[in-house]
């Protein structure tokens, strides 16, 4: 179910590349763990972000979750729809509810991230732990 044209992080973000621009969002697993999303805080266009560092926040009724950037670069665009409709993250996390588009400063960073199969195996392991 996880798109094969994306790469994934252990913190449950996805990134989809188009030239030097990477679109970033959180995974279906992440939205499910969070529950009803009610607020999203994103960086300004032009902000510099660094791989592995938090760049925004997604809040559900119960929890605050920081979003970690899979890559380094500059914010080219943010998803303005999420300001008024944060619940889109629950409904379409891999599509309409993308968070930011980043102009990558180092295109090879993407290669170290998990592909869909590796991510799926990673969360299957996590789910086994919690249902034990």
């Amino acid at each position, binding site marked *: 179910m996880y798109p094969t044209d994306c790469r994934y992080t252990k913190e449950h973000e996805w990134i989809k590349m188009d030239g030097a621009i990477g679109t970033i969002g959180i995974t279906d697993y992440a939205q499910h763990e969070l*529950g*009803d999303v*009610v*607020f999203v*805080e994103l960086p300004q266009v032009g902000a510099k972000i660094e791989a592995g560092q938090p760049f925004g*926040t997604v*809040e*559900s*009724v*119960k929890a*605050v979750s920081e979003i970690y950037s899979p890559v380094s670069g500059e914010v080219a665009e943010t998803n303005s729809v999420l300001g008024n409709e944060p619940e889109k993250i629950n409904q379409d996390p891999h599509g309409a509810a993308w968070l930011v588009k980043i102009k990558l400063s180092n295109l090879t960073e993407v290669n170290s991230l998990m592909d869909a199969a590796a991510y799926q195996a990673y969360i299957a392991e996590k789910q086994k732990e*919690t*249902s034990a």
Partner: protein
Amino acid sequence: MTTPATTELRKTALNATHRRLGAKMVDFGGWDMPVEYTGILAEHRAVRTAAGLFDVSHMGEIVVHGPGAFELIQKVTCNNVEKLAVGQAHYSGLMTELGTFVDDLLVHKMSDTHFYLCVNASNQDKDCAHIVRHNTTGARVENASDYYTQIAIQGPKALGVLQRFTQVPLASINYYHFTHGLVNGVECLIARTGYTGEDGFEIYFAPEHSDKMWFALLASGEPDGLIPCGLGARNTLRLEAGMCLYGHEIDETTTVWEANLGWICKMDKGDFLGRAPLAKQKEEGVKRVLVGFEMTDKLIARDGCPVLHDGEKVGHVTSGSPAPFLGKNIGMAYVPGSLCAVGTQLQIGIRNHQAAARIVPLPFYKRPK
């Protein structure tokens, strides 16, 4: 309220059922409990507009009985048990010698010599030990938690759904009263109490009947809009209703006067644990007071966020959350007495922001009569 990883989580009799039904489970003060079923927003809305079903069997039940029971309860709690009729319950505080909270609890008067206490899950062992330590009257004190499943059915449709399973005329049970009777063929203590700000009932019965009771109520209530709910919605519901949660608004450092709970503290009932320090604090006045606030910025205050006034830290948020039914972000906080007036502008430190908030009257939500 974290539990070492080596400790086995405690489970209610409905644990396997919650898992089978797909509830999201969390470690809640050492208990493996459902935090949500369909989602906190939907569950919260169901309780305000229809009904919700909660497994609250993690709550502790302590039985105090024998000729010395009345005197012992009168000594360790701050409310006046003398005012309770048989079949009546009240909200109270279990007091330290300092007049602070060992716990908050419901005291049910079963008879002149028999009291049934409902206490917080993670405090039950501490509470029981505390009561035993102060037992100079020869009363029998027993932690009876393992003998009871507790299910809460809450919301405007709760009475109608529950009535299908019992001959007891539920409408004749007044708020904060209880009776005994058969529900779905099972002997229950049926109390018109709750922690949601809605009408509803809490029923206590032997754990072996848990699954049968749970599924019967769920199936019957489904056409009425009743859904199973987790502790996530229970928390947002109680916060909207302005109710305190132990470990947040009250603990062993806070008093009834600070927490706006003066109405459960009866100074004229005679001596009780902590009465002298409470009398002193009442005379001198409190340094901090619990208030309710709503955010005027769009940010969400969370437990532990600092509260600022003119840039200076003056307190902290005890509970902060979106209020799903009100459509606002709300919270409770301790602030200095000089800053507790309704309308006072405060700032809440949220990440790197100072977000604007305003003190509002409590409760945030009151159900329509």
